[in-house]
């Protein structure tokens, strides 16, 4: 069943057109991994989905609600779409617990006790219950990213968008974040993940989307796309990635 529909989305920054008509559909429970060279609009696409970036044209639906309609309460939509940033963006003045709890109290209007219980449960889920009282600056990058995943999860999102969630992490901290994401995918969370982690893409994705130059060049199940890409550009990108990171791509 279709959860998200993106239809012919365009976005231009000044003279440069970053998205040149991108369409995709995402089913409930599906994990889509978006790969491609830097600066090809992958992050912009994610930000257009919940209108953190306003698309210039094109339409987006979450279930049967048009996200891009001027009549839609975008805050209501955003509360249903989790977003995990490359550089975490945890609220620096709040503890891990308060970071997870803030959306529950201010957006979902949960009573404090209920919000606290829920936030603690989400911290538990990412293995950081013992860090509830720690401030972001007292946590490692991997821990911060796990808290930010807990913050997204607490809102009961219909899907979560991951914008290069491990790119800002030291190599030894990537695994703990990927482990959380893998478990979410297995539990049936719907996710779009922009990443360069090919190992993760191969093992978790239901579909790989290869983007370049503001368009989707090719998409398909990981087995097929990694083994026999149809487009020469896809093949070349995968070859360069595997040269960098080895055959399994980390």
């Amino acid at each position: 069943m279709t959860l998200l529909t993106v239809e012919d989305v365009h976005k231009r920054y000044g003279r440069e057109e970053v998205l040149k008509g991108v369409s995709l559909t995402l089913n409930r429970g599906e994990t889509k991994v978006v790969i491609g060279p830097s600066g090809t609009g992958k992050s912009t696409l994610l930000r257009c989905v919940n209108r953190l970036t306003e698309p210039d044209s094109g339409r987006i639906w979450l279930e049967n609600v048009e996200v891009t309609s001027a009549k839609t309460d975008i805050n209501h939509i955003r509360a249903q779409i989790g977003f995990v940033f490359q550089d975490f963006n945890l609220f620096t003045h709040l503890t891990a617990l308060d970071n997870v709890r803030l959306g529950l109290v201010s957006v979902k209007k949960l009573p404090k006790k209920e919000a606290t219980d829920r936030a603690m449960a989400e911290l538990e889920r990412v293995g950081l219950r013992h860090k509830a009282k720690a401030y972001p600056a007292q946590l490692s990058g991997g821990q911060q990213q796990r808290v930010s995943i807990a913050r997204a999860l607490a809102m009961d999102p219909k899907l979560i968008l991951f914008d290069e969630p491990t790119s800002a992490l030291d190599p030894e901290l990537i695994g703990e974040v990927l482990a959380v994401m893998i478990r979410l995918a297995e539990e049936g969370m719907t996710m779009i993940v922009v990443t360069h982690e090919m190992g993760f893409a191969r093992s978790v994705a239901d579909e790989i989307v290869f983007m370049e130059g503001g368009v989707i060049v090719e998409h398909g199940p990981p087995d097929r796309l990694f083994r026999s890409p149809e487009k020469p550009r896809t093949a070349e990108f995968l070859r360069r990635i595997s040269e960098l990171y080895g055959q399994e791509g980390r």
Partner: protein
Amino acid sequence: MNLVFDWAWLPRLSQGLVLTLELTALCMGLGAVFGALLGLVRVYSGGKFSPLYWLASGYVHFFRGTPLLVQLLTIYFGLPTVGIALSPFWAGLVAMTLNTAAYQAEYFRGAIQSVKAGQMMAARSLGMTRVQAIRHVILPQALRLVIPPWSNELIYMLKYSSIVSLTRLDAGTMDLFGAGRWIQSRTFRYFEVYIIVALFYLALVLILTLVLRWVEGRVRIPGLGTPRRSV
């Protein structure tokens, strides 16, 4: 040289001190509220295309660009000609508030803009409105950042509140400096009284500096910034 200090000066000076503190506290408090609003408008009103932005910017430039002394005397001696007569205390308070609000607006603007853009984005991604994001995420961080420049402004206003003695504050309502001048006019002990008055201001400034440094430490975000005495 024969310096003469008289304990009899103390009651009058203390009265003045109280008025100086009242004026400073009120203008700094009101100025913080007004200044924070101006700062928010300057950052969030949508920039060069918004009339609110121009209004706020015009205000800031005008009140920073003209001397506080001119503002005070205009309000006290000028406004009565258009039918607005303020008492010396109120004229002083209004002038000081209008002036410090303009300066504080810039300190708040700087502090708000020092909060990383990702903080606003993360708040909005959770479904917070812009006002909610400002209230729960931006302001709590900006208010911490504004403490050092705000302390500076506080000290400045404390000392420059002495200009209210140029309006006709009567004996019952004199500020610290005015009280000193009143004593001088009766004792002719200019040097001694100036020394005492200066020491009063100095003591106040030192105490306030300590208090604000304590506050700054109290609200410091754990793990952020360097604790004092480390390299």
